[in-house]
């Protein structure tokens, strides 16, 4: 069974000064699944992504990817191992074209420009952005920028893709296309972990869900069971429902 575990996060803690953004977090990601990571604002979801992708190291705990301890590896090294991520606030290379943005991702595995360009075009087409290939990245609309984030990450040919709120701010029809895209990505054999706020989108899409609250794992399991969990309802859904 352990060979099924692609990513194994064990007892990870990350502090920012006095604030504990991730506290003793343990999460296992199975190969081939779509895992939903949910939780209220400030729960520590993006922090966990940063720890997995290597933006900064954890204060405590271990992170294993395909059995290898990666907790001390740099971000670029983890990218080469097959971990890719998008940013909650899109970070495009605005002086470059959309195609060039994706080529930067493709260069992670393809040293040659012609091959990287081919990969980049294919990835853009896969993400439905090929029409925008020559446009300056800075001119994309916000939904297009999110797609670019996904395309750029996919161009690195990852085994694990971390999607941080890629559906935020999309219209319902755009979100449907987004859901379709995530399914297509998984069908290509890429394991997906996605942070999402909109329950109606995540719950039907994911195989499993992990709920974070105040830096701690609150619940984990089938989406159906997670949304019925009392602790989750009070911490997250209840709060949201009250707010709504």
């Amino acid at each position, binding site marked *: 069974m352990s060979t099924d575990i692609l990513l194994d996060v064990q007892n990870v803690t990350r502090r920012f000064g006095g604030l504990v953004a991730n506290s003793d977090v343990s999460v296992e990601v199975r190969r081939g699944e779509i895992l939903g990571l949910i939780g209220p604002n400030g729960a520590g979801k993006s922090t966990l992504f940063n720890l997995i*992708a*290597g*933006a900064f190291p954890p204060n405590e705990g271990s992170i294993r990817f395909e059995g290898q301890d990666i907790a001390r590896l*740099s*971000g*670029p090294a983890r*990218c*080469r191992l097959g971990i*890719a*991520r998008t*940013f909650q606030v899109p*970070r*495009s*290379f*605005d*002086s*470059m074209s959309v195609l*060039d943005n994706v*080529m*930067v*991702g493709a*260069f*992670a595995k393809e*040293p*040659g*420009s*012609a091959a*990287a*360009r*081919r990969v980049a*075009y*294919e990835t853009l*087409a896969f993400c439905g952005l*090929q*029409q*925008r*290939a*020559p*446009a*300056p990245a800075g*001119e994309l609309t916000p939904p297009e920028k999110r797609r670019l984030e996904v395309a*750029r*990450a996919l161009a*690195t040919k990852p085994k694990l893709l971390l999607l941080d709120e890629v559906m935020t701010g999309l219209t319902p029809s755009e979100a449907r296309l987004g859901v379709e895209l995530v399914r297509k990505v998984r069908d290509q054999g890429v394991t997906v972990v996605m942070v999402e706020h909109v329950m109606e989108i995540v719950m039907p899409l994911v195989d499993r869900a992990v709920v974070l609250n105040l830096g701690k794992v609150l619940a984990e399991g089938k989406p159906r069971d997670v949304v019925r969990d009392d602790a989750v309802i009070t911490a997250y859904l209840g709060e949201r429902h009250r707010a709504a």
Partner: protein
Amino acid sequence: MTDEALNLPPAFGMLPRRRNQLLVAAAVFAAIAVSPFAIKDVYLQNVLVLTLLYAAVSQSWNILGGYCGQISLGHALYFGIGAYATSVLFVTYGIVPWGGMLVGGILSAAIALLLGYPCFRLKGHYFSIATIVIAEIGLLLVHNWDFVGGALGIQWPFGSDSWATLQFARDKVPYIHLALALLAITWFVTFLIEGSRWGYWWRAVKDNPEAAESLGVEIFHSKMAAAAVSAFFTAIGGAFYASFLAYIDPESVMSFRFSLLFALPAVLGGIGTLWGPVVGAAILIPLTEITRSYLGGSGSGIDLIIYGGLIMLVALAKPEGILSLFQGKRQKAEGRS
């Protein structure tokens, strides 16, 4: 999916845009190569040599500053290393300037790596300030270093005109061709880099280092590589300048003024572009030479005021440089297609 559905360009060899760049470069450089037939005036030839030299060195500066986004205001140091290595090797040891050029270039690249190690941990303005300080320290050291002539500098011996010693006292045309060759080489190297993985990595580092890291780009290595290439070609420029003047002293190759004059053409013409430094130098250097001959000498500081004014103008009107006036339209047209 077919290639057409993927919206692939017809050929996967060289992109049409890049092929056109090469053709334009060939035409421009060929025109400059034959220009001495039309430009006979020694003063104008002199201005042309300097324009080509600054275009080349600014292109070298652009590799680190424009593509990789690390704004150095201390490139006079590398220029000086090239000039001094060449002069010392030639005057003291009789090694032809061609050898000095190479030694100076390699020495500069090595020093750039050594300095980059601490400096690239600094961000933005702090990095730029560090480069100024280091270059000024270098200037001071040379001033007080008798082996390289101290404050007096180094006078190259008079000899007959020769391609071996790069001395041409009577006819300045060979210098035009030398400077042109230097520009063509730095331009072509930049062209190659721009189309390669390094070029993409460097621009990614400049635009958004966090995103670049997440895509497998080693930020520190990228900056180091850019600095080494940039310093190498800047030193070659310094070597050429020393042979052109046939006399150097610390101020005449290493003063802060040079650091500005290497950065400005790129900033003025279009930072991080292939033609920005060339266009910028073509405007700035003749202007500098004119004010110099009207106002006399470079000590007055008037030229520095003019540079400052130009920079403010560019920053206010067109931060991407003069070239963007033309490129803006074209890119938009491409984006719509």
